[in-house]
């Protein structure tokens, strides 16, 4: 059973999407239930893995099967595998995937127009997001990463608002551009990670010779040639620790940190890092690559906004943790100041923009940009608190942004209008809604007790410590980022006050009839999300205990590399 548990997370939604395509279009209730089943399964499966996992072990579950391999003649053989794995780094985000996608299905309960295509595409999206988090083979990851765009394009383009065609193509082009940058690096990486076992089998090495040192030595001595080697790009083998242990990296190549291949005056590794970084920053999104996000959010329907903000953006952050930092720690160190700066700019710029917005959804969209800035700042700090906080922020923001977009959706459902100025005093009309909306906004501004607080405080701690521990980030960055918290409080509280408190005011009188309190369905979406932000705000160790196993080694490795590089730099 547990053997195919991981695969079922990807393939059950895929299968259900096919089922939806086959059953008659009139049977709309069944379509919804199937969609709920597919996304609900992601939650159930990830909870099962979470509960049964041995958190001490690095890897909880994995499945590895050969996919295909290509013989490039003199250039060696490329091997691509179906390799999916659950560990501390992707399991929380997998759970978040399930939660936000399920919330999305519930939020799209009333979709009637072309519902067959809608739910089929939705499940396709669900499968590709889950696949993206689980994949450990670079090509497999890229497949899901890019395939995700397609259902999203149609979900925004067909069921979106008035300017949906513009927003959907902008979303597609921006993220495709990002993934092309990732593809360039992937192409460059492929011939650099040796599948030692497969190569040894091909050359006919003994067991004691089956290690990367022997392969590299043999290659240098001419015992065998590159065409005898088999290459496979698994993330677990990517770690370019410079002590040459536990890695499968070809000596002298792009991933070998000891060698400086220069291209246009800069080490090739730096170029690769920058390309990957920009690729994932577009997805995250960070200023100045963020402009697709407000458009996409405003035009997308509520459930799609939830999915987009809660989980799609997180893939950008996850990519930094999974690929960019392990593969290029030296470059990450070199550019830490710039990454931190981007983070600070995103925090302040996003928050300032949020303050100025009149459209509730746009406000939430810019607040996302601001919150994602914390992820960058935490990563750039290269401290334990910073990295853990950055990861915590990914998870926490997933929950909070899902709530906020649902809040916007509740209002939009009733009046088809989202302008903040058109509403006041909603609390007396919709008391339950007001409570939940308040929780959402409080969580977003980082009130202690909510998950956002833990995340942001850890990031800020990391940023402050960085100055004394490794002097990567100057003190002012942490101080300015802390200002972001104040701005967040400003736009959250101001919005809350304008919309929910004071005397009742609605732009059009007929809206008064529409403004009924939350339905049961809406409660089912909002209440669990609110509870979860509280739970993870009060018991951070719930999440940290799981992520520790994955992030600590990463930090250790990055630290080690950092130390070695510092020594190297000092020596020069």
């Amino acid at each position, binding site marked *: 059973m547990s053997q195919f548990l991981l695969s079922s997370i990807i393939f059950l939604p895929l299968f259900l999407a096919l089922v939806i395509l086959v059953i008659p279009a009139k049977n709309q209730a069944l379509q919804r239930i199937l969609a709920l089943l597919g996304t609900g399964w992601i939650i159930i499966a990830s909870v099962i893995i979470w509960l049964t996992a041995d958190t001490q072990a690095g890897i909880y579950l994995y499945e590895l099967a050969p*996919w*295909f*391999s*290509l*013989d*490039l*003649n*003199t*250039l*060696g053989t*490329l091997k691509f595998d179906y390799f999916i794995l659950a560990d501390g780094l992707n399991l929380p985000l997998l759970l978040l995937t399930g939660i936000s996608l399920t919330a999305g299905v519930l939020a799209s309960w009333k979709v009637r127009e072309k519902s067959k295509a809608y739910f089929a595409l939705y499940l396709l999206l669900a499968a590709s997001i889950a696949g993206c988090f689980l994949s450990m083979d670079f*090509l497999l990851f*890229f*497949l899901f990463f*890019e*395939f995700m*765009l*397609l259902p999203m*394009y*149609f979900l925004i*383009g*067909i069921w979106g608002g008035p300017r*949906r*065609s513009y927003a*959907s*193509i902008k979303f*597609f*082009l921006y993220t*495709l*551009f990002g993934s*092309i940058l990732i*593809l*360039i690096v992937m*192409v*460059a990486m*492929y*011939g650099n990670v040796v599948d030692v076992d497969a190569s040894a089998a091909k050359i006919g090495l003994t067991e004691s010779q089956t290690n990367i040192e022997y392969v590299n030595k043999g290659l240098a001595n001419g015992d065998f040639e590159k065409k005898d080697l088999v290459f496979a790009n698994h993330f677990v083998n990517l770690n370019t620790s410079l002590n040459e242990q536990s890695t499968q990296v070809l000596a002298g*190549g*792009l991933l070998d940190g000891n060698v400086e291949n220069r*291209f246009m005056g800069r080490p090739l590794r730096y170029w690769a890092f920058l390309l990957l970084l920009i690729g994932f920053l577009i997805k995250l999104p960070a200023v100045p690559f963020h402009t697709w996000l407000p458009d996409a959010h405003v035009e997308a329907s509520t459930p799609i906004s939830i999915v987009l903000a809660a989980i799609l953006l997180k893939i950008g952050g996850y990519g930094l943790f999974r690929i960019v930092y392990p593969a290029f720690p030296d470059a990450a160190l070199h550019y830490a100041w710039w990454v931190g700066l981007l983070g600070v700019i995103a925090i302040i710029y996003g928050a300032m923009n949020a303050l100025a917005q009149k459209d509730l959804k746009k406000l939430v969209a810019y607040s996302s940009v601001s919150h994602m800035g914390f992820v960058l700042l935490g990563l750039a700090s290269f401290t334990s608190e910073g990295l853990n906080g950055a990861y915590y922020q990914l998870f926490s923001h997933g929950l909070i942004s899902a709530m906020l977009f649902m809040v916007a959706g509740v209002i939009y459902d009733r009046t088809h209008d989202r302008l903040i100025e058109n509403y006041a005093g909603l609390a007396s009309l919709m008391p339950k809604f007001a409570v939940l909306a308040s929780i959402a906004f409080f969580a977003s501004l980082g009130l202690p007790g909510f998950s956002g607080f833990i995340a942001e405080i850890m990031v800020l701690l990391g940023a402050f410590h960085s100055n004394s521990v490794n002097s990567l980030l100057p003190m002012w960055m942490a101080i300015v980022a802390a200002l972001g918290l104040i701005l967040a409080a400003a736009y959250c509280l101001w919005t809350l006050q304008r919309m929910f408190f004071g005397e009742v005011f609605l732009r059009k009188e007929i809206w008064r009839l529409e403004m009924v309190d939350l339905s049961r369905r809406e409660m089912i979406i909002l209440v669990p999300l609110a509870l979860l932000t509280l739970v993870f705000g009060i018991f951070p160790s719930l999440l940290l205990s799981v992520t520790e196993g994955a992030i600590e080694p990463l930090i250790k490795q990055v630290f080690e590399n950092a130390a070695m590089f510092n020594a190297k730099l000092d020596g020069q």
Partner: protein
Amino acid sequence: MEAEQIDILNQKLLNILDGLAVIVPEFVLVIGLAFILVADLILQKRKSEKQRAKLLISYHVLTLLAALFATSIQFRDFAEIQNQTFNGFLLVSGEAIFIRSLFYITAIIALLMFRRTNPATVKLLAGSELHIFSLGVLIGAGILVMSSNLLSIFLSIELMSISAYALTGILKNGESARSALRYFIFGSVATAIMLYGMSFLYGFSGTLNWQNTGFWTGIQSVPLYSAGIIFLMFFGGLFFKISAVPFHVWVPVVYRNAAWPSVALFSIVPKLAALTALWLISSRWISIENLVIPMLVIISAASMLVGNFSALREKNIKGLLGWSSIAQAGFILITLVAPIESSRFPFFFYSTVFLIMNLGAFWLVYIIGEAEQTYDMDKWAGLGKKYTFEGVLLLVFLLSLAGVPPFAGFTAKLLVFTTLFEVYTLGGNPWIVFIIVFGLLNTVIAIFFYLKIPYMLFIKESETETNSTKSNGIAMIIPSILGAIILLLFFKPDLLSLVLNSFNFGL
């Protein structure tokens, strides 16, 4: 003395006789061509137009199947066939046999693409011209991929071109005649330029056979830039068939105005034939590599750029596919930068996939376009409701052309760029890095116009209410199969490598 000469002559004749096995498929095509000519004369009086069209199509398909069978026999008996034959005019390689069998399959699909619901189309199919010129294209393409002599290259290019000019004008209306004339003029100029380049090459090397080492060493005495111009002129004829920039000017006009299934034939087959010929030549050009690589990089970059940017403004769907084929040609062309052992698989993988996805896209565009009587993109708005399955399948082909996973077009691009990067790490040629980055960034531009068609079909609402879905039944079988192959080759690309490696002989 005389006896000696007779002996030489005798040997030459024997060589030709030995080589006859090589061109059996071409023989079959010629026999089929003659048969169709005669049959047309006989049938003209007896049968109705519809029956004639049916009969001629079946003769045509039978001819192609026979040719396909002949190539399959060649696969089996390949070991017994000499490498160079016809006194050095033809060169036999497994790759040539493979690509020729692909040509015949393409021709069959292109022929079946014609929908006989329109009386004008029936009339076209009932005449022998279309069949004859289609076979002419195939004969030329078959010889081109085997040419080891400049003269046979010239001969086969001319054969293909003349057939293609005639096919363009075959609709006999003003537009198609004008396009044919334009095509003819461009083609003649390109051929003239090629001949000029060839005469230089002969002058400097004293041989017309590019397999001779003398052919390549002779040119080294020429200053670098002059040699570049000479080779550009020589390759110009091939680039014209490949429709690479700046020899692409004929493409959009011809695509828009010729009979669409014929366009499928005479755009895909000669393009791949010329590319294969160039690929074969690339096995020997190592001595002038620092000349050829920049040339290829510039031409393919220009093809991508011009193809993609022009497609952005194109309103006609036929024209759009024309520009797309220019850009795609650029992608296949850069594979040749790699040494031949490394470029074999990416080249043939891309070529095969290109052929499949183009045929699929052509087929579906034709089905919708003929049913709606328009290829104007704006008029396709909202048609996705009416043609849901067709539209989704078309989306598959277009995304594959754009190079998005999970379709084989992505694998093809991935293979090309991975190979190129490995070549770069071995040699460190900065041109290669440039084209990798440039080519990949171009796919972002490409996706914009490839998505335009699905955008029109599914996202844009139509102003007029569309009537209910109409099933195209049997006509959807072949594109469905092609679509399945596109998916299959993404998930199992090594299937094709098995096929290709099973006859890994050749050069």
